[in-house]
């Protein structure tokens, strides 16, 4: 079953007289549990596509079905509730709330869930342990390195156990070692927990660790290789 089905997806931005066709008739199917890298030149519409999949932006035309739910049918609040249970989003620039500690940042999405305080605490602690930051609960973002910040952001994205993780150049701002660390983490999430991951990247070696690469150019999907679908762990191409 496909986790994500996009049909005739279009996104136009209107700036004065000018209409910028950021995405044009994008059709894409992504299978549950797969790890997809999204590549393409700057301005090709990668972030736009990711935002549409995350339900933080609305398409101009076309449909997006995720886990059998047409997210175009959801109203503003419905979409917010849907995001809080189904999507974990990882940004290039981490986007932690500066006034909150690592622990509190990771706790944020769980405050929307009907769980006990004890369970919330356990889940936050687990998520921070998973990303190797069990000893940094009380640190503020400004007291962490970029790599550590990004790992907090990953913990925040996975703490609700979403089916879909979207990552926009998650290693784009990191040094080589931190980037490798973050990639190891994403590969592990995909393999061990079966989470579907769509990741934007500019770096071919980073893309190589995903199971499949989708290319965007000028708002269109281009020469997607046939039969390249599948789970990352079905292929031996990624290094560990």
């Amino acid at each position, binding site marked *: 079953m496909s986790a994500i089905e996009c049909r005739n997806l279009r996104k136009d931005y209107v700036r004065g007289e000018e209409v910028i066709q950021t995405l044009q008739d994008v059709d894409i199917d992504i299978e549950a549990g797969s790890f997809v890298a999204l590549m393409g030149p700057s301005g090709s519409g990668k972030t736009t596509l990711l935002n549409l999949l995350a339900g*933080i932006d609305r398409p101009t035309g076309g449909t997006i079905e995720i886990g059998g739910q047409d997210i175009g049918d959801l109203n503003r609040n419905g979409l917010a509730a849907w995001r809080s*249970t189904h999507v974990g989003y990882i940004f290039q620039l981490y*986007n932690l709330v500066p*006034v909150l500690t690592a622990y509190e940042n990771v706790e*944020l999405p769980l405050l929307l869930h009907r769980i006990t305080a004890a369970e919330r605490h356990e889940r936050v602690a687990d998520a921070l342990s998973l990303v190797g930051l069990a000893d940094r609960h009380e640190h503020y973002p400004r007291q962490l390195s970029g790599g550590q910040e990004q790992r907090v952001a990953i913990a925040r994205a996975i703490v609700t156990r979403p089916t879909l993780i979207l990552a926009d150049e998650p290693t784009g701002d990191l040094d080589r070692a931190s980037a490798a660390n973050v990639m190891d983490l994403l590969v592990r999430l995909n393999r061990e927990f079966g989470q579907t991951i769509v990741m934007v990247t500019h770096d071919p070696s980073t893309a190589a660790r995903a199971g499949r690469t989708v290319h965007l150019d000028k708002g269109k999907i281009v020469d997607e290789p046939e039969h390249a679908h599948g789970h990352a762990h079905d292929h031996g191409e990624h290094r560990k």
Partner: protein
Amino acid sequence: MNALLRSVPITWKNLSRRTLRTVLTVAGIAVATFLFSFVESMRDGVRRATEAGAAETRLVVYRKNRFCPFTSKLPQSYERTIRDVPGVKSAVPVKIVVNNCRASLDVVTFRGVPDEGFMEDHLQGASLRSGSLADWKSRSDAVIVGSALADRRRLRAGDRFDAAGVRTLVAGIFDSDDAQDQNVAYAHLGFLQETAERGGTGGIVTQFNVEVTDPSKLEDVAAAIDERLAHDQFPTTTRPESAFVARAARDVIALVSFAGIVGWASLAAVFALIANAIALAVRDRVRDHAILQTLGWTGMDIAWMVVLEAGMLGAAGGAIGAVAAYAAIGFAKLNFTMEGVSIGVTSSASVTAIGILLATALGAVAGLAPAWTASRREIVQGFRTA
């Protein structure tokens, strides 16, 4: 977690962890609320002293067309005439000597009252802090002093107290809620008549304090007293005590009601301070709000957070300012005294509560527009703006 409660911890952290911004804003609100509460307390004092209550039973008989204790002179013998007017329960001749006829914060008013009866009655509603009534009775130059005056002049029972050319001995100090008792020293009528008039015109008093039996007949009794003395050598004007104070204190009342503008302006300042602080905070947090919404928080959550923060700022500043005003007024025991009457500025729980509530409500209202803007901003737009 409950939709309203889940925003509280984040809002609290935003306030408590941006210490400088919060302290500056709260301090500004506190100062403005302090001013508001202070002015309101003054207005409250004026209202209480000058607005006739339904249960008012006191009249003041004064010399007609005279407005200062120095010039109001009435024969003590009027006492019997006044007491005979139907509806009069009691009439007390009072001699008033002040050290300053104009409005002032350091006025001493001597009231000469009869040796028997008056002080016993009068002290029923008040409490003697030190000294005793027996001491007062045993010496002709003894005075019983109101607590505000005693505190200001640092008087204790047994001290000598000289003012306005009158040399007295403090026999007791009493606490009273009545503004008219604050700057007052009760002396023996005969003693004050002799000393003040340098032995000349004994039997002359300044005014008569009259109690009526039925508050609804207050005006009628006043008219009847003046009627009866109209053709005498010294015609009188009799007014309810509140009206008497209102007339004597008209300058201060005009000033205080003008100060009311300052009170309302202070509230405008509270509003402006919070509106500004919140507008800046919301602009600073465009990205934070976009993050929260990405995580599933709704526009309503964001709006509520902003209103909550504005309300909390108002509540904190309002509480500090209003409570500080309450304490300052209680501590300072301010009284405006003029022509022998006083208007007290007293701290009241209701003025304090109103100050806190208004600051909180104004804060919340000041947060509404920024809250609306923040809640309507598209998430993607938020990330691009930040």
